[in-house]
């Protein structure tokens, strides 16, 4: 039992923190918020040069073979600066799904390009009628003589507008009708029949909705051999939630420090806000919740490769708990900044909005406490 960082992990943390502190400031974030792409291609290139895009990719596909703890270290640093590059979509979700489900040829075609920064991915799974149920997919993939025909719609696709290839989930149909299995298809962003409508995402970055009307794909667009992809989807989403949890910890830490500094400087009734016990106790509660969130993010990362039920319970528990802490820390940061906290003139609001987006992504606290409870009964 050892929860201390290795020397390599410490180096990774230092370089990520240094990079974010140096490259991410308020001006940069404001520019990105109004940018049609929502992130900087130059920064993405630097991510590649720093080896971060290769981090979790296996060494045989030009990656560095890192795991969920390394991803968490990076994501926490990203949270400190509200990084808006499509790291989660491309590396944590996209590359992981190809690595888990793809054939050797499919992996060889994509993973080295993700690692060197020339291929961006996205994962299109959520649908309006499914809410947060990962098993409900109405988008269909019908076998044709030449390959597959996809039809349906997807929502809340993170960074789909920037992706070169989008991994789309669809229920597999053969000539008997729906098979009950979900397949994952690698869909080129430029394919005919795919309509992408993108929008600014709450808290930075962009997302999009997809319409697929008779999108024709070759046989090898299907990742793997047609086994049901639901277990892989659950695995990937659990890992993404762990990564997002670490990012949320970084966001909360920045909010805590910013708010603490403000309460020391801001004077009311002739003394700093922090001289009031009610303020000190609020900040103590915020510090405590940041620390609890930190513990849960670490737990989710360390158990990301556990057997499915244990992994899923841990991921859901962490998502629910960190989400609850995030809402509290975010809302109290605004409260303690007073009127200024509600304006766009300070950045507290931007950090808060990213936390709200975090809490909503892949399901909020109520959903994940319920999933945690249900998995507990099955266990």
């Amino acid at each position, binding site marked *: *039992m*050892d*929860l*201390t*960082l*290795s020397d390599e*992990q410490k180096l990774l943390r230092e370089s990520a923190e240094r990079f974010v502190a140096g490259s991410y400031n308020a001006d940069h974030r404001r520019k990105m918020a109004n940018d049609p792409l929502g992130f900087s291609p130059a920064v993405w290139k630097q991510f590649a040069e720093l080896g971060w895009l290769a981090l979790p990719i296996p060494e045989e596909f030009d990656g560095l073979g890192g795991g969920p*703890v390394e991803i968490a270290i990076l994501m926490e640093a990203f949270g400190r600066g509200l990084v808006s590059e499509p790291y989660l979509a491309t590396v944590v979700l996209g590359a992981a799904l190809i690595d888990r489900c793809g054939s050797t040829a499919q992996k060889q075609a994509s993973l080295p390009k993700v690692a060197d920064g020339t291929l961006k991915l996205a994962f299109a799974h959520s649908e309006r009628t499914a809410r947060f149920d990962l098993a409900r997919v109405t988008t269909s993939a019908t076998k044709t003589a030449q390959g597959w025909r996809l039809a349906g719609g997807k929502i809340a696709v993170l960074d789909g507008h920037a992706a070169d290839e989008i991994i789309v989930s669809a229920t597999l149909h053969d000539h008997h009708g729906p098979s009950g299995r979900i397949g994952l298809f690698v869909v080129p962003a430029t394919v005919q029949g795919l309509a992408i409508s993108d929008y600014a995402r709450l808290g930075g970055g962009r997302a999009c909705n997809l319409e697929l009307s008779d999108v024709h794909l070759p046989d090898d667009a299907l990742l793997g051999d047609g086994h049901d992809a639901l277990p892989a989807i659950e695995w990937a989403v659990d890992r993404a939630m762990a990564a997002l949890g670490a990012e949320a910890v970084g966001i909360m830490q920045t909010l805590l420090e910013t708010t*603490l500094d403000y*309460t*020391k400087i801001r004077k009311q009734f002739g003394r700093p806000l*922090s001289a009031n*016990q009610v303020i*000190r*106790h609020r*900040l*103590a*509660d915020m*510090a*405590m919740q940041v*620390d*609890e*969130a930190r*513990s*849960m993010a*670490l*737990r989710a990362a*360390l*158990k990301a490769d556990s057997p499915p039920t244990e992994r899923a319970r*841990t991921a859901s*528990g*962490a998502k*629910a*708990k960190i989400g609850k802490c995030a809402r509290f820390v975010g809302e109290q940061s605004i409260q303690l900044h007073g009127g200024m906290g509600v304006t766009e003139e300070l950045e507290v609001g931007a950090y808060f909005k990213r936390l709200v987006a975090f809490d909503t992504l892949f399901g909020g606290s*109520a959903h994940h*406490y*319920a999933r*945690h*409870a*249900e998995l*507990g*009964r099955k266990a």
Partner: protein
Amino acid sequence: MDLNFNAEERAFQSEVRGFIAKNLTEEMKRATALTPSVFSDPDIGMAWQRALHANGWGAPGWPVEHGGPAWTPAQRWIFETECARAGVPNVNVMGVKMVGPVIIGFGSPEQKNFYLPRILSGEDYWCQGYSEPGSGSDLSSLKTRAVRDGDDYIINGTKIWTTHAHHANRMFALVRTSDGERQQDGISFILIDMKTPGITTRPILTIGGDHEVNQVFFDDVRVPVANRVGDEGKGWTYGKYLLEFERGSGIASAKLREGLKAISDLAESDLTGRAIDSPDIASRISEVEVDIDALEMTELRVLSALQTGQNPGAVSSILKLRNSEIRQAVTRLGVDVIGHDALAVEPMRPLYKLNHEPASPEEMLTVVPEYLNGRAYTIFGGTSEIQRDIIAKMMLGI
């Protein structure tokens, strides 16, 4: 980073399991499960202490030269966790975990030779004389006074919330030996034989129906000066040292997990009409379980820091605060889970020696008393408000 134990640690784990299987009797287990106060009664608690001592495990935190087993932090974690899982008696901590470390740290050679073996063997049973009716969280405002008279002190005053004073043969107390500039000055740390003339003990019943705490009165009580630990007037320093032990023992999650398991077992039982089928109850159980997961991870992070010689920082207040809040959440959930059975009051103690059939099933008897008595968790050892002050000061610098 690795959450799993290594081969050596796993071997130690099976050694602990073997010890527990051999020494924990059904009687001890049942008595512990049916005790709604913090500590087991001495007959149960000391039986377990004697078994531990016979195996060289009587004082896990002590240095080897005084009889400690020289465990690593991970071994202590494993020991505490296995004990909680098995439901071993809750030995009163006043001896081994509280006065013991102070005597080791600041006592004279004579005091060490006399008291330490008697703590280990369970021959002495200790209580703590800290709080007074006028000083709760503001402990250093205490007024019990010790006036020098030759080789003795003459003590007058009163102590309150004294856990197991009615069982104890010894008390360690903070008393005022002079008035300094600051109210922390002039306090001395003194060891008192409870059979000394002039000491009377008044029981205090807590709202759960248990007699665990007392008020103790001192009326011209003569105590030898040789019973003072360390220097006169330095007692506050020693007392604070001990409070850090009280707050930061740092291994609470395993006990909370067992407490929650008892409640969720009830929720899944026909005795409660399967309370768990209510989505609200099921989600709340999950919420508390996840809070315990978070506390456990924080404990393990502290443990890892200790193992590698790092200072974990002011996190002991966070551990104390979260432990007490989660404990209250578990007991609150318990009351909601048992439903109608929360109405039945069983006034007799101990609950494991009732001479009649209780109104509720046995596994429910401690639920309401634990909830009621458990309100004290956020009060004793420094209230939650005091802990938040400490977090703000030590962690945030405000």
